[in-house]
């Protein structure tokens, strides 16, 4: 178990930067998930922590010891790879026990530990098989066992579940969560799956273009995305965005002169271009004449069983609203309303989140 400190970490491949200045502190026993689109540098960051990738500049410290120049095997980290990366010529038990063999642990002790880990993962009946004779889920477990056996200070996961089918993925997700609770080791988990990120993370790190966009608990990030990128990236169906301009009073005006949130005031210069964001589930269905209402034309309804997704347009913009299945879709023209508490506003210029002035009610 260990804490990790990363400061101004950079990685450049030839001329292309992959990681551009990452600062992050991870506490002992924390489960941190790194989330971001493909190619944003998640794997590169993880591999620099593991020692598999040279660090161009910056510092990685584990338990306050700088490990930049330590070999991967000497950092006390264990890694679970996306393609499992099991040794094809070794049996399951040899795979799991290889790190102990390298470390010179006596055979009896090794076998004892292998058996303990295998039992924990439900692999005891497969110990003599080769990786090629296992299913994807079983291979995944072997990879986990191989990582666990040394009781590493840090667990590193690089999209370990992305090769499993949906059901198995859920099962392994729960298992990883359970193991983390039992072992309490510091873990860093890379994924581009939101659901995995939201459910596993103690703390979520959203990355984009080699940089960290936002760090926080999944709830914080979901409820208060710090940037346009995070707001757009997280959430399914994705957040609706309405372009608007700030008027002389500091209110947001969108196309057709509509004011979606007439009582909120932002401290932005008049004429500033912004985007109002609202999650589909936060939209309220109201009559067309309501104050601040945006007329909504339904084009298609998707019934997902637990909820209905209403896809349509508002002032010519695509918009999605979510209704619980119990709620009927209105059969007359209607509008949607953005509750004040559900408004997210981002400056167009840099994508930064701008909160409204809190004492702005003019009732």
């Amino acid at each position, binding site marked *: 178990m260990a804490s990790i400190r990363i400061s101004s970490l950079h990685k450049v491949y030839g001329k292309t930067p992959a990681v551009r200045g990452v600062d992050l502190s991870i506490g002992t026993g924390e489960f941190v998930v790194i989330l971001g689109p493909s190619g944003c540098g998640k794997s590169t960051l993880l591999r620099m922590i593991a020692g598999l990738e040279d660090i161009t500049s910056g510092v990685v410290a584990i338990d306050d010891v700088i490990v930049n120049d330590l*070999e991967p095997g000497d950092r006390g*980290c264990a890694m679970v790879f996306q393609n499992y990366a099991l040794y094809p010529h070794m049996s399951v038990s040899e795979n799991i026990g290889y*790190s102990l063999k*390298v470390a010179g642990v006596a055979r009896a002790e090794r076998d004892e530990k292998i058996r303990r880990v295998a039992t924990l993962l439900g692999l005891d009946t497969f110990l003599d098989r080769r990786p090629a004779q296992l299913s994807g889920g079983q291979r995944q477990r072997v990879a986990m066992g191989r990582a666990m056996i040394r009781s590493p200070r840090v667990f590193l996961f690089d999209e370990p579940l992305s090769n499993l089918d949906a059901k198995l993925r859920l099962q392994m997700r729960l298992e990883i969560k359970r193991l983390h609770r039992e072992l309490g080791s510091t873990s860093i988990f890379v994924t581009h799956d939101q659901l995995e990120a939201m459910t596993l993370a103690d703390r979520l790190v959203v990355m984009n273009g080699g940089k960290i966009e936002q760090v926080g608990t999944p709830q914080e990030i979901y409820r208060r995305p710090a940037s346009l990128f995070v707001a757009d990236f997280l959430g399914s169906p994705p957040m609706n965005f309405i372009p608007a301009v700030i008027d002389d009073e500091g209110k947001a005006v969108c196309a057709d002169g509509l004011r979606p949130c007439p009582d909120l005031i932002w401290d932005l210069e008049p004429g500033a271009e912004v985007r109002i964001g609202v999650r589909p589930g936060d939209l309220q269905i109201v009559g067309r004449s309501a104050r601040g209402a945006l007329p909504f034309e339904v084009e298609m309804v998707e019934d997902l069983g637990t909820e209905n997704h209403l896809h349509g347009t508002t002032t010519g913009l695509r918009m999605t609203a979510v209704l619980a299945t119990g709620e009927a879709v209105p059969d007359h023209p209607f509008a949607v309303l953005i509750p004040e508490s559900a408004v997210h506003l981002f400056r167009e210029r840099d994508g930064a989140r701008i909160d409204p002035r809190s004492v702005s009610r003019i009732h």
Partner: protein
Amino acid sequence: MTTSMNRVLSSGAAVEPEVSRKARPRIRPGALTIHATMILLAFIAIFPVYWMVVSSLKAENEIFSTGLWPSAPSLDNYGFVLSQIPMLRMLANTTVVAGVTAALHVLTGLFAAYALVRWRFRFSGFVYGLIALSWLVPFQVTMIPNYVLASRLGLLDTLAGLIVPHAAAAFAVLMLYHAMKSFPTEIIEAARMDGAKHWRILWEIITPNLRASLASLGILAFISAWNEYFWPLLLSRSIENSVVQIGLQMFMTQEGNLWGPLMAASTLASLPILAIYLLLQRQVIESFMKSGLR
């Protein structure tokens, strides 16, 4: 074949039409042409070997007859060969030379390929290019310098002298380079995470997974070392320190070739190679396919 057929047959009536279609394959004219050609080529390839064995069994007065089988087959030629030259000693020498050469090929190839694939160093591409180029350098070019070097090192007329210049081969490096290059990096990284350093990664992770390539390379190197003629011819002085290919030459005299003994000696010299072919047929064929040589 039959068991799988039986299984299919017993598995139900639904698949019967399929089976009966498979059971009586129609011979298409195209396939017939191909087979005829292959048979002809195989015959052309095998006939000289057959002729060699048959001739070795013929008496001297019959050697130029065109009969496909000697009227009175005898092993006299073999007796003559064994009495004239230390054939068994030479066979043993050749086995040692070819075996050690093949082993060294594999070993040096592994080291060089690992360094080229796994280590990033300046000019590694250049080094690789040089090695590839050295493959194209004909033996005749390096023959004289090698001879001078061997004589200075006191390796003339020794088995070591036959082995050392062939201890490393560009072909071996290139072949293993490509095999290693296609080995999944993630597995090596997993081993690094498990604490393994280069030596262990090479021997415990990579090598066991390259067995097919290593076997191919070993066989090819063994055969080519076995068939080596010019270098032993240059280096060997005494017949005791010589190899079978030199032994064969003893029966080509200025008064003419002793065909019967020559064929007998050739047969003896080919036996080990033949044995390798028979024992490791699958690997040999695979290795030739892989290396693109046929």
